[in-house]
């Protein structure tokens, strides 16, 4: 039983993978986590100028926030007054 448990533990111990849609998942015996941003999100934001990757899945520097251009300015009116610009 204990051997079986150990095997199970081993199976889960280093289970991390990227789904085809680019969502990073890690699953161990203790827990299962997934990244809400997929690597596909990189299409919506500038890539990291240093490693040319999207942070969550493959950036090796975690400096994207600093290296990317400044974030877009805030929306015009958060009371909903105004039209759609794009």
């Amino acid at each position: 039983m204990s051997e079986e448990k150990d095997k199970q533990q081993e199976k889960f111990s280093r289970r991390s993978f990227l789904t085809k849609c680019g969502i990073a998942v890690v699953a161990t015996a203790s827990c299962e986590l997934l990244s809400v941003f997929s690597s596909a999100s990189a299409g919506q934001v500038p890539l990291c100028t240093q490693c040319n990757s999207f942070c969550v899945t493959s950036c090796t520097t975690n400096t994207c926030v600093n290296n990317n251009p400044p974030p877009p300015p805030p929306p015009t009116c958060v009371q909903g007054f105004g039209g759609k610009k794009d």
Partner: protein
Amino acid sequence: MHEDGCRLVAADAPLKVTQHLLRLEKNGALLLANALRLKPLLVRRGGEFVEQVLAAVRDGRCTRQSLAARWPNDEAVLAFLLAHNILVAADDEERLPGSVPVPAPGEKSHGMSLYLLLSQDCNLGCVYCLNGKRTYRKEAQPRMPETVAFRAVERFAAAIRPGGYLEIALFGGEPLLNWELAKKTIDYTEQVLRPRYPEVRFCYHVTSNLSFLPDDFIERARRHNMTVLCDIDGAGAVHDALRPFKGGVSSHGQIAHNVRQLIGAGVPVSLRTTVTARNQDHMEETARHHRELGGNGSAFVPVNVTNSDEELIGDDLIPDIERMLAAFERVKESGVWSLDRLFPFSTYRAKLQPGNQSVLGCGAPFGNTPVVDAEGNVYPCIYLVGIERYHQGNIIAGTYPRAAVLAELAERLHVDKREDCRVCAWRYLCGGGCPIHLLTMAGQNDISPKARDYCDRINCAHTKKVLEILLWEMADQASRQADGQQGRKEDE
């Protein structure tokens, strides 16, 4: 992948839990995010274990090495927490610059919504009108003259950088009461300014009660791809109780007729609801009503309790915050509208993109929402018209811009400086939300407990609720996508 995450912090470097931790729980799942460096993380199973790791880091001097020694089978989890900025280096200050890059005078903007108060008078008698009698000089029924309108569009078109946009928002009062000037202003923009600034995108918008339509409005709206926003606060009597004609005659039938007419002619009309105590229990029904009318989308916005005269609406109009927020969620859950057509969700989604950080809640301190009144006075926001301390100068008299107004707004509204924001973990995501109550109510002592409570809580409660709903929406979607993938690509 996770080894990359581990490289972020040396193995023997002390760790801490981010000070910007957002922690949400729903149906046994846990959602964690760092609001400064947003990479939300969904804990689908084993939330207690993750909490245990975070507690250990909070309790003592932990490093990656020491955590890995304690949980040798969960190194991948530790790396994941690091890669998602839930755990960060203990010496990471996790702060944004204390100053805001407000454009210097003369610096060009990427885009603006220029609000022209074509007519400061209106034919409706809304119970919560944001235009104060004194500041909007309603008794004089001011109409903007051509000189002011032309100077305004000229002035602000020159302030847009190539590739940027200028949205000319026809506003009031009721702007269609001065429709002739609206047309002349559009013509001037098309014939003079568009050739002068070929790299600037010009677009037109009208916020109108649509209680009447000028004969050529549809043709003009189509020709210029005009967007239209109209307030319909509920179906029939619900709307009429809040937005009747002056004198109390019902307006809903006429407005609904005109909305249908516009939509039938191919002019998109977005419909907006100001949420008060009188319609807070009808929000889902109102969303359906907007949809039935053919609206391009629905907006639900909590009422502001103060107008530009800094006068308060009655307590009987002030919504119950918790009831209203629950109703917001029901509207979203109803699926009547997709989120890209349901304000505020449509706008706040932009705040939940990778890399987004906000230290201010809206465009006013950046000078992105200038309002020009009938006499050429400029204010940073439609709610601040006529308030002397926010007067940026006059474009006809040559006193515009008083740059100090925006600089002071930016300084005062920076989330690291606002007393109500500076220790809040959400602040770099929400940017403090709409600051109108803070700007107009600060010195008010003669205020009822209900109004005070509403002013103190509504902005924060509303913004957080919307962001929470959206974070869960994104997490649930990622979870469904992950489950739906066959043949996962093994990382190791």
